[in-house]
């Protein structure tokens, strides 16, 4: 957040360049198709985590409904792929549920030029509207969290209940191709992975630009004293709605990238519990730092994948315990811990709050 000395500007790029090299060159060469696909999935989560960090870490709105935006992006993309897979026929789950024609609101999703932008715009607009309405009536803090959580519940109930239109509990699955390329082909998956990695990099750079600007400092000011910001002459409603919309749009983007790589989207990925898990990523990595959000998303999901396979029970228990410990003892997450250790090394530096 503080201005860098000119000499260290180049050094500031080094970690980013290293990470880019690792993700774009080393990982595709070293990892098996299966693992690369898994990493691609985690990178989608990291994109979402960046958005959530902007919303929570920087602007102070703890959203417990981020899964909704992820899900909306995922469903928009999945419906496009489903319609491509159905080749002009009615998607299977719709005919099973007794529909005879494609509902009007799904019709435009047969076109990529509509479906893919909508995967970002719909969640972005919904988040913007929710953010606007809640901050306008000055609902914030825990109330904001609890209402966004209710939103997650609403959407889960709705998507499960409206089986003919959404595929119900099973969600949308059996996707085959994207632009004619088979989703089962490792080469398609490799390209999707690379697109995801580049998207993550671009998102990171853009958000770094935003958070380092005067706008970013306005976000922090709103987090630390929303009322004071009003008396500074700013209208926090517009700012918060904008930040929440960006967070929602990024979650939607993550969902849209997630679906072709994983092959399914279902209500289980957008509900109350996955939404809180998203918060866990950011909290563990370190809220209020972009690096922390990315690292948290990657590490937690890595641990989840490998530990939950071998010790499913112990994993859930451990995640809960870890989370409690981090919140109580490491409110700034892993990045905060690293910084604190680093500061002990070169004492005399300005303390971190």
């Amino acid at each position, binding site marked *: 957040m503080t201005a860098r000395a000119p000499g260290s500007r180049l050094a500031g790029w080094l970690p980013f360049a290293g990470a880019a090299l690792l993700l774009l060159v080393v990982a595709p060469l070293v990892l098996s198709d299966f693992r690369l696909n898994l990493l691609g999935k985690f990178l989608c989560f990291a994109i979402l985590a960046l958005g959530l960090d902007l919303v929570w870490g920087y602007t102070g709105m703890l959203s417990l409904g981020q899964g909704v935006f992820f899900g909306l992006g995922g469903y928009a993309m999945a419906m496009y792929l489903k319609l491509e897979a159905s080749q002009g026929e009615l998607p299977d789950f719709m005919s099973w549920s007794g529909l005879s024609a494609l509902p009007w609101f799904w019709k435009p999703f047969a076109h990529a030029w509509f479906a893919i932008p909508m995967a970002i715009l719909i969640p972005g607009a919904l988040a913007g509207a929710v953010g606007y309405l809640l901050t306008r009536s000055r609902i914030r803090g825990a109330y904001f969290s609890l209402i966004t959580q209710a939103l997650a519940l609403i959407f889960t109930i709705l998507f499960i209940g409206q089986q003919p239109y959404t595929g119900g509990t099973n969600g949308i699955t059996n996707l085959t191709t994207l632009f004619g390329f088979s989703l089962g082909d490792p080469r398609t998956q490799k390209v999707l992975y690379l697109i995801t990695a580049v998207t993550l990099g671009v998102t990171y750079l853009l958000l770094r630009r935003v958070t380092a600007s*005067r706008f970013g400092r306005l976000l*922090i000011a709103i987090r630390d004293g929303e009322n004071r910001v009003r008396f500074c002459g*700013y209208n926090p409603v517009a700012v918060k709605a904008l930040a929440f919309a960006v967070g929602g749009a990024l979650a939607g983007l993550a969902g849209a990238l997630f679906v072709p790589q994983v092959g399914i989207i279902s209500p289980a990925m957008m509900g109350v519990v996955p939404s809180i898990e998203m918060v866990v990523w950011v909290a563990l990595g370190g809220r209020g730092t972009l690096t922390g959000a990315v690292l948290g998303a990657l590490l937690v999901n890595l641990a989840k994948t490998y530990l939950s396979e071998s010790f499913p029970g112990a994993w859930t228990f451990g995640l809960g315990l870890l989370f409690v410990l981090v919140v109580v003892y490491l409110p700034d997450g892993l990045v905060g811990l690293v910084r604190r250790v680093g500061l002990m090394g070169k004492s005399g530096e300005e303390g971190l709050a």
Partner: protein
Amino acid sequence: MTGGALRVENLTVEFDGFKAIDGLNFSLQEGELRFLIGPNGAGKTTLIDVISGRVRPTAGRVFFGHSDLSRLQEHEIVALGIARKFQTPSVFPHLTVWENLELALGFRERLPALLRPLGREGEERIAATLATVGLEHRAGQRAGTLSHGEKQWLEIGMLLIQEPRLLLLDEPVAGMTRRERELTGQLLHRIAPGRMILVVEHDMEFLRRFAHTVTVMHEGRILSEGTVEAVQSDPRVVEIYLGRGRQRGKGQALTAG
């Protein structure tokens, strides 16, 4: 027509049946430096709350020029040129002193413009404001690490950089050392020309040193108004301060000396 003057008309503010302000009439002329005093619960802070848009009046209206402030939101009132300093210093602790001023400076810009860096002119204005409030050497320090008095000055600086026409200062010297109070008083006189300033203050020594005209509030109304000497010799003022002063320490300062 009283161009930029502040007019409070028949103002009443109720909290759960308790009248914090009760049919108050008050006005401030262009270029005036006014002190507002009164015992605890007189309604001074509530009056400032109403002017700055934090509290909505139960009845009555507040005009700034032709604008009815009671219909506006806080940030709209700031845009009219009314800046307010809170009783407890409210600066942004995680931002540096420079960044705090930069934030205050940018309040008229559109949001996308805030993505661009601050221009040369802006930097010069921040530097000038830092000099005015005497915090040049603290520019790169986080505001949370400042001393109490320095935070108060930073907050005054954040108001000044917005070039307000009316400054509302709620106990600007509370918690300051004697020397800091002296410096603040001088600062007040330096910045007073060309704008209106309304100061709520308890510190009587400060009042006698730096006030021209004083308004005394009591139980939500104006009790007395005039020069410091006139107000001090007003028997009603002596009564409310002395009558209570026997139980409380605060009021005695007014008559002692």
